[in-house]
Structures are given as structure tokens and as C-alpha cells.
């Protein structure tokens, strides 16, 4: 059997047996099942009764506000004087009361009395009072339809058109914001997890001093390739489990939770997601392998890895921005910078805010960077695997690579 394949198989198996890998992989499906279960349970056991009617008292010094005292969810109770209103408030008979002064028509001023600490009334109450006032003010002046429109003059429905003027395929908020971010997050976790495992496996063999025994059986290139592919395969398994979870969840959730009825994950997004996952993984794997071989211990290597982990999480800080304005210069720059490219592209793909040439260019840049880092990592790998002792300076690393 090919030795690279033996290493691949070994690393793949060891990763699948690893507890943290299993926990992380199964966490998402478990969470999804749990979430749906809780939702179902709540739906089943909790039957909200008729909404409690709120009673709000008022004093009318204009004599104009005698009708329409019953608005949806609230009953307005007229009191002849303030003493009675206050007593009713203190007896918790009413929630609050307000006074319409005699000069209301000219001033518009209304004083509200409440025992609750939030002096600023809630939007709901403000709306209810407004509706009550409007109904009384316009009674007889306009038709009921006009009254309805005065109360709610705007019911906004936005329709997004794509470049050709057609109605874009995804319209709702959930799939245009949540899906790309969640999607990118899952892929990024998997990329970092798999390449982190690679890093661990390299440093572990170095720390354990198994490395020299291995190198007497295989070449450093076989070792590197076997490891990268083996852990990548494990990462793919994880991603597959997650994708299946997401697909099944979205199908099931659509039927159960009305708010998610528009949730759909297009197949093209999944396909591109896999492409960017593989490329992203290869890039970070090469970086991690190189860094892992330099340090004598895992801790030492960890310090080095910050150099590329920090830029890699940049798209997350910008995630809202990328999703809301995918065609901005910043989004473009993050698409083309190799370390941020996979994740940014995935977000933009999910928002349909990326054009074909940008995908092509980002893929070319990624492939180029992967080739370069792999070549570099293989060199570093060979030189530094057997070096313990002092951490080399960057200048030294470059010289060794040149000599190797």
C-alpha cells in the first residue's frame, strides 16, 4: 500500500476517534434536534389565552373623546375627576391614566400618570392611545377606510431586483442575513478545527520524538501530504454531517416554524461552500503544518499561528457589513486577500452579491497561495522537524528554506 495513503488513513482514523472532534461534529445536529424539540414542546404545552385586556383611565376636559373606548387589547375608562382616577390607579384597577386638557386641540399636550418606573411609555401603549385619539378626532370627518389608512399609512414591502431587473430569488431577511453568516461560521469552524488538528498532530509527533522514527520510513513530503489529506478528509466528514443537519433542519423547520417558511439553502451555495472549504482548509493546513514544524512544542507554534489566525477572523468583524453591502471595496478586498477569501466569498455567495469574475479571481488567488504555502511548508517541514532547541529567527527560516 502507498505510504502516503497509510498515513492518510491513520490520521483520518485517529481524528474520527478523537473526543473533541466527535463532540463538535455532533453538537450541531444535537442542538438542532433540541431546538426543534423545545419549539414543538412549547407549541404543544403552551396555549396562550386571549390576550389580557389592559385598562387605561383618562380624563377628558374637551368632551371630544367619548367613543371608541375599546381599542384592540385595551379599554379606555373615562373618569370624571382626577381623584377617582388616582384611586383606581392605586387600587390597580387601571394600569395608568392620562389627562386630555381643554387646550388639547391647540397644544396637543397630554399628561400621563403611571406607577410603573418606565416613565417613557411603550410603543404599544403609545400606539393604542394614538389610535384612540385618532378615532375620536376623525369620527364623522372621514370614511372608515381613510381612518384605517391614517392609523397605518405605511405597510412596507421591499422587493429586491437583481442586475437583470428580475426579482431576486431570495427575498426574506432570514436567508439573506442569517444563512450566509451561519454558513460561513460553520465552514470556518471546520476549517480551523481540521487545520488545528493538523497542527496538533505535527507538534505532537515532534514533541513525542516519534518524528525521526517516521522519517526513517517515509519522506517528509509523504508525511505532510498524508497528514493534510487525512485530516482534510475528517474535516469533510464533519462538514457533511453539518450540511445534512442544516438541510434536514431547514426542511423540517419550514413545516413547523412559520417564521422560517422562507428558509432555503440553494444547492449552488452548498457546492461552492465545499469548494471554498477545501481551498480554505488546504491554505490553513499548509500554514499550520509549517508553523507546527518550527516550534519545539505546541505552545511555541501557537504563538506563530496568531500571525495568520488574526487576519482570518477579520471577515467576522465585518460580517454584517459584508452581508449588507457585498459589493463594497472592503468586501472586494477581503474576497481577494487569500486568508480572508474563503470565508468572505462564502458570505457573499450566500447573499448573491458576488459576480462570476470575482469568484474566478478569488479561486485563482487562493490556488496560487496554496501552491506557494504548500511548497514553503514542505521545505520548512523537512528542515525543522528534527530541530529542537532555540526558536529560529525569521531570517534563519528564510535561509534554511533557501538551502533546503
Amino acid at each position, binding site marked *: *500500500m502507498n*505510504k502516503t495513503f*497509510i*498515513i492518510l488513513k*491513520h490520521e483520518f482514523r*485517529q481524528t474520527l476517534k478523537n473526543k473533541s472532534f466527535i463532540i463538535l461534529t455532533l453538537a450541531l445536529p444535537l442542538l438542532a434536534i433540541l431546538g426543534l424539540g423545545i419549539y414543538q414542546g412549547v407549541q404543544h404545552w403552551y396555549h396562550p389565552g386571549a390576550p389580557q385586556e389592559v385598562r387605561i383611565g383618562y380624563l377628558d376636559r374637551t368632551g371630544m373623546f367619548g367613543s371608541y373606548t375599546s381599542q384592540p387589547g385595551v379599554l379606555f375608562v373615562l373618569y370624571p375627576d382626577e381623584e377617582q382616577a388616582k384611586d383606581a390607579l392605586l387600587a390597580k384597577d387601571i394600569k395608568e391614566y392620562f389627562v386630555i386638557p381643554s387646550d388639547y386641540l391647540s397644544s396637543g399636550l397630554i399628561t400621563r400618570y403611571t406607577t410603573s418606573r418606565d416613565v417613557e411609555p411603550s410603543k404599544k401603549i403609545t400606539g393604542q392611545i394614538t389610535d384612540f385619539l385618532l378615532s375620536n378626532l376623525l369620527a364623522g370627518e372621514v370614511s372608515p377606510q381613510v381612518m384605517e389608512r391614517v392609523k397605518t399609512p405605511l405597510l412596507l414591502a421591499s422587493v429586491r431586483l437583481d442586475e437583470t431587473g428580475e426579482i431576486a430569488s431570495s427575498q426574506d431577511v432570514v436567508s439573506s442575513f442569517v444563512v450566509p453568516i451561519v454558513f460561513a461560521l460553520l465552514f470556518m469552524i471546520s476549517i480551523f478545527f481540521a487545520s488545528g488538528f493538523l497542527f496538533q498532530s505535527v507538534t*505532537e*509527533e515532534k*514533541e*513525542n*520524538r*516519534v518524528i*525521526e*522514527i*517516521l*522519517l*526513517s*520510513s*517515509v*519522506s517528509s513530503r509523504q508525511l505532510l501530504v498524508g497528514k493534510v489529506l487525512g485530516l482534510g478528509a475528517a474535516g469533510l466528514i464533519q462538514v457533511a454531517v453539518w450540511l445534512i443537519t442544516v438541510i434536514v433542519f431547514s426542511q423540517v423547520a419550514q413545516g413547523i416554524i412559520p417564521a422560517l417558511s422562507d428558509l432555503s439553502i440553494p444547492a449552488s451555495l452548498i457546492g461552492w461552500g465545499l469548494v471554498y472549504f477545501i481551498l480554505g482548509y488546504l491554505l490553513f493546513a499548509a500554514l499550520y503544518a509549517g508553523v507546527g514544524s518550527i516550534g519545539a512544542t505546541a505552545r511555541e507554534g501557537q504563538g506563530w499561528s496568531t500571525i495568520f489566525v488574526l487576519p482570518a477572523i477579520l471577515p467576522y468583524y465585518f460580517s454584517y457589513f459584508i452581508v449588507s453591502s457585498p459589493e463594497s471595496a472592503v468586501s472586494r478586498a477581503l474576497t481577494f486577500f487569500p486568508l480572508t477569501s474563503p470565508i468572505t466569498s462564502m458570505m457573499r455567495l450566500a447573499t448573491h452579491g458576488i459576480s462570476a469574475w470575482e469568484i474566478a479571481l478569488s479561486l485563482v488567488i487562493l490556488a496560487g497561495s496554496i501552491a506557494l504555502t504548500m511548497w514553503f511548508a514542505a521545505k520548512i517541514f523537512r528542515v525543522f522537524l*528534527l530541530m*529542537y532547541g532555540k526558536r529560529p529567527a525569521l531570517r534563519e527560516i528564510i535561509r534554511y528554506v533557501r538551502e533546503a
Partner: protein
Amino acid sequence: MRAIMNTVETFQISKSFKGIKVVDNVSFSIGPGEIFGMVGPNGAGKTTTIRMLMDIIKPDSGEIKILGEPINEAIKNRIGYLPEERGLYRKLTVSESLSYLAALKNMRRRLARERAEELLKRVNMLPHKDKKTDELSHGMGQLIQFVATILHNPELVVFDEPFAALDPVNTQLLKELILELRSQGKSVILSTHMMNQVEELCDRILMINKGQAVLYGSLAEIKSRYRNNSVFLECDRLPEGLPGMVGSKSHLKYIELFLDGRTSPQEVLSALISKGVTVGRFEVSTPSLNEIFIQVVKEGR
């Protein structure tokens, strides 16, 4: 081509790190069925030489042939290497570690398992085969590494400081196993700075100092070359007029007789006996390898 091919053949290999020659123009060969000692002080270049043999690092110049060929993947399957810096996977069990390392030598799974059991039994480690190497003592770990080195039945076995940190019982066990390898016709390279072990086990040696081969040949031949023509004598009295004697020196319990180099110790002994001397001890002085080593290293300075 000779009838018996040499297992290892190096021709003027050199290697420099940071402009310093760590191995300088070293040539040697090792035949089947011999234990070859590679000796020298720390930092002399032994490990670098071995790593070049194993193809872990490439020589700057010179030529290496293992089992008649420049090293390649097929050849790597026929050699076993126990490095000085060695360890095991901590999270794997003994059998898992062994089967992975054997697989990397292209050994069949079943065969590897059978042979691992057999060897583990030899080193009394069979009861521990399902333990994680984490749970083993340092010495036990060493025995497992030894098993891993010879598991795939290699024709060339390289041991770099194999006895370090082993207790006397296990040291003896390992020595027996190494001698067994020789009797099976394997070539064994033993790299160490412990001279008594080299004297005990090795047929031929290469002594390296500062990257250069300073002594190379059979142990017996080297020792006789460094013999200083003296004998140690314990007797009741020292008679006058012994043949070829040029001087003597009294030690606490014995007398050291210096001979002229033309007279054999045999003649001295028969002269002693003919003079009626009661001889308690008569020993031809051969310097220990340790003394030769120190002498050579001093001369090299």
C-alpha cells in the same frame, strides 16, 4: 562484485551546517552479520552520519549505498532505526503504535501482529500490549521502541544509544537480542559513547571525532595496534635477567613490565616459570577502548 554484498557502503560523505563541517569525508562499509560500533564524543557527528544513512538528511557530497542501492522507499522498508531522540504516540496503545509503524514499513497487518506478539513476549511486555504508552514507564517505553525497530525483520538495524536509561536486566536482554540479530546475519550499527558496551558487542568500529574518521577497523586489530608492549605481573618475586625487559613499574598489587617489542610475552612467561617464580597473574596489557578513545581525542586536539 563480491560474493557477499556489503550492507552499508559510504564513500567520502560530508555534511556542513552553518558553514561548519559536521561530517567530513567519512567512508566506511559494513557487512552482513556484523555489529559495527560507531563511537565518538558527543557532537562528533555520529547522529548526523546515521541520519544521512537513513536518508533523513542528504549529504552535501559523497555517496551512500544501502543494501547495494542508493536509498529509496523499498530500501527503507528493509532497515530499522532506533534514534537517540525517540518516543511513542502517547495516546495510542502499544499494539496500535506497533501496527502503524509496521504498516509504514509496508508490513502486512496480520504478519505484523503475529510478530509483535512474539517480540513483546520476548521482552516480557505482552501483558501491556493494550495499554496506552502514556501508562508505561520510561524503560518499558524503550523496550517497545526496540520492538518497533526490529518488528519488520530489517536487514540493517541502527541503534543510537540503545542502552540509555535502561536498567541492568533490560540492558542484558537487549544485548542478547542484538547478538541474536547478528547470528541471523543482520548488520547492526551501534552508536554510543559507552565504550564498555562497544568492547563487549562490536566486531568492527568507526571512531569519529570532530566529523572525521579517526579510527576504523576491527576491534581486535585496533587494540593490538594500540598495545604498548607491556605485561601485568603478580608474583612472589621479580627475578633478574628476564629476556627483552627494558624496565618495570611497581603498582599497588602488581608490576608492569615494559618489553622491548621484539620479545613476545610468551617468552617472558616461560622464562619466569623456568626461574621457578610463582605467577599469580600474567596479563598482556591491552589498552581499553576507553583509553584508546581518550588518547585519540587528545591527539586530535
